[in-house]
Each structure stands twice: as C-alpha cells, then as structure tokens.
C-alpha cells in the first residue's frame, strides 16, 4: 500500500472481453484455485493484472485494501470490483457467478458424496481422525489472522499494540465464560478498536 493510496486510479486500458469470455475466465480461476484464499488471490492477480492488464498492480492493492472492510468473503469483493471495472454491473455479476459456480458446485458435490457415506464405520473412524486435525488447522488459521493485525498495531507504537492485545484477550475470555451474543463481542471489539485508533493515529497519516 503506502503511497499508492494517494494516487488516483488508472483509467481502464485493457481489452474488454465478451460477456461469455469474462464468465469463462473467472470460472477457470474458481475451478483451479485449490488451497484456499491465498491461492485464489494469487491466480486472480496473475490473470487480471499480468495476463489481461485489466488493472495495474497499484490498483490491485488498492482494491484489495477496500475489500478488507467489505462484508463477507474478501475475495468475492475483489472479484466484484475487478468485474465492475471491466464491464460495469453486468461485469461484476458475471465475474462473481463465474468464480462461485464451479467451486460451489464442487463443494456441494463433495458434501453430498460425504453425506451419503457419513455413517459407514470406516468413514466415522476417518472423521474421528480428521476432526482434531481440523481443530489444529483452525488454530493455525486463527494465528495467521491475528499476526498481521498485531504486526500493524506494533508498527504504530506501544499504545496500539496494548489495545490490540487486550482486545484479543478480552474477547476470547468473554466468549469462553459468558453466554454473550457473539455479535456483541465482535462489534464491541470493533467499536472499541475504532475509537482507540481514531485517538492514537495522527490525522496526517490518513491519505485522501
């Protein structure tokens, strides 16, 4: 990010693909991006920035920044913004459905196959092994979610770091002990962090 935020967005110079072709490009990305979010992000960058030159590297980073605060899956937001840039609202819709349909279809197919053999003794035994592994991978995921947030807090100084660590610990403890609505915990932590950030980060570091 850095300075790129302050520059204005580059005009669209790439070729505009036909609707069908646009849909197909995203379908291929959706079907082949095994390995979660970072694999998908990598593929999108390669196709949209390098192969088709729909947008510059800086704009890609800027879009990704916007998507961090959009609701839902960040990658879907990115796909929508790129599709919108290429061909307006129809482009956004085509790109989103192109990315989602094959991967959602494969997910449903895997689930229905699994659901039909779920009660077989061998499968039950296999799942008894998979469940703790999922917990392990989930803990790793939680760690990778927290690390960049704590790192950016650390770059801002000791006060920001303290706020971040306290929020992390308190939200974990509240979730463990009290029967609190999860939404209250999530948005409460968000609101407190917003307030702290507003007080702690100097205004001049806010690029327009």
């Amino acid at each position, binding site marked *: 990010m850095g300075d790129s935020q302050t520059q204005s967005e580059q005009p669209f110079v790439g070729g505009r693909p036909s609707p069908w072709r646009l849909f197909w490009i995203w379908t291929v990305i959706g079907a082949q991006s095994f390995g979660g979010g970072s694999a998908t992000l990598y593929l999108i960058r390669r196709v949209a920035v390098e192969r088709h030159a729909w947008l510059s590297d800086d704009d890609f980073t800027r879009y990704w920044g916007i998507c961090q605060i959009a609701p839902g*899956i960040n990658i879907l937001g990115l796909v929508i913004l790129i599709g919108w840039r290429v061909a307006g609202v129809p482009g956004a819709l085509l790109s989103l459905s192109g990315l989602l349909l094959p991967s*959602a279809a494969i997910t449903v197919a895997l*689930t229905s196959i699994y659901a039909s053999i779920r009660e077989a003794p061998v499968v039950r035994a296999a799942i008894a092994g998979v469940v*703790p592994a999922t917990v392990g*991978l989930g803990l790793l995921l939680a760690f990778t979610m927290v690390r960049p947030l704590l790192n*950016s*807090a650390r770059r801002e100084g000791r006060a920001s770091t303290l706020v971040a660590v306290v929020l992390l610990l308190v939200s974990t403890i509240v979730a463990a002990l009290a029967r609190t609505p999860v939404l209250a915990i999530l948005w409460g932590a968000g609101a407190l962090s917003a307030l702290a950030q507003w007080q702690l980060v100097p205004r001049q570091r806010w690029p327009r």
Partner: protein
Amino acid sequence: MSHHLALFWIMLRAALLSTTGTGNLPIVHQDLLSRGWATDRQFAESLAIGQISPGPTGLWVISLGYFVGGLRGAAVTLVAIALPPLLVLVLVQGLYRRWSYHPAIQGFVRGLGLAVAGVFVIVLTGIMNTAGWNSTNLIITLGAIVLGAMRRVPVLVVLVLAAIVGIALF
C-alpha cells in the same frame, strides 16, 4: 420452506456483519447450534470439506448449508454469501474509496478481526470438547499444526493423513 428462509437469513446476517470467509463462523455457530440445526461435528466436517474444495476460503458454509437443508440449503447459503459484498460494494463504492483508509475504519476492522480470531479459538475448543481431549486427539491436533505450519505440505495431505490415522486407531 420457512426453515430455508430462516437459514438464508442466518447466513446473510452473519456475512453482512462480518468480514472474511471465517468471520461469519462464530455467528453462524451460535445461531445454528442454539436452534439445534447443526452439530459441532458437522461444523468440523464442513470446515474440512471447505479446505479441500477449490475457490476462496469461506465456501465451507455452503457445505454446512447442505447439512442443514440439503441442496436447497446449499443454494440459499450460496446466495446469502454472494449478496453482501455485491450490494455493499456496488451501492457504496464511492464512499468506500473515500473512507476505507480512515483510522477509525481501519481500527474497526482490526478489532473485528482480533475478536473473530478469539471467538474462533473458543469455537474450536468446543469442537474439541465434543471430540474428547484424549492424548490421541491432542497428538493429531499438534501434528496438523506442525504439518500445516510447513507451507510445503498441502492441506489436503494433512487431512488425508489424519483420516488414515483415524482409520488405523479408531
């Protein structure tokens, strides 16, 4: 039908009020478990299926939607996770471009992310409560962390190994 409508609303609300593909997990978990519509085992299973299927992280809810409401449940969940980013980004794109770097917004996103991770850990301990805190399970958990932390090993391999261990031991 009202069952599917309620599922749609739960999924939509969770996606609207969170960010990232796992930010909705704590909300969905609380909503579905309190109704008795899903179990901790089904959560773990859909997370595992989500890990091995292609596409962005976050499609695990489609798998969960299938467990709760069959094919229709998966379909309403798909729509429910596609709508929030679409509506919000298309409707308020200009606002987003202008405000997304404001310290308070950045702070909000950070606080939300930290709390999601914290609650997520508690959800995971709940799944572990169901599975049992015995030494075999703990060793598998630890093994998955170690293998997963080495970025060379694909998630699919970790899960297949865990399944083999499960078949051998249970």
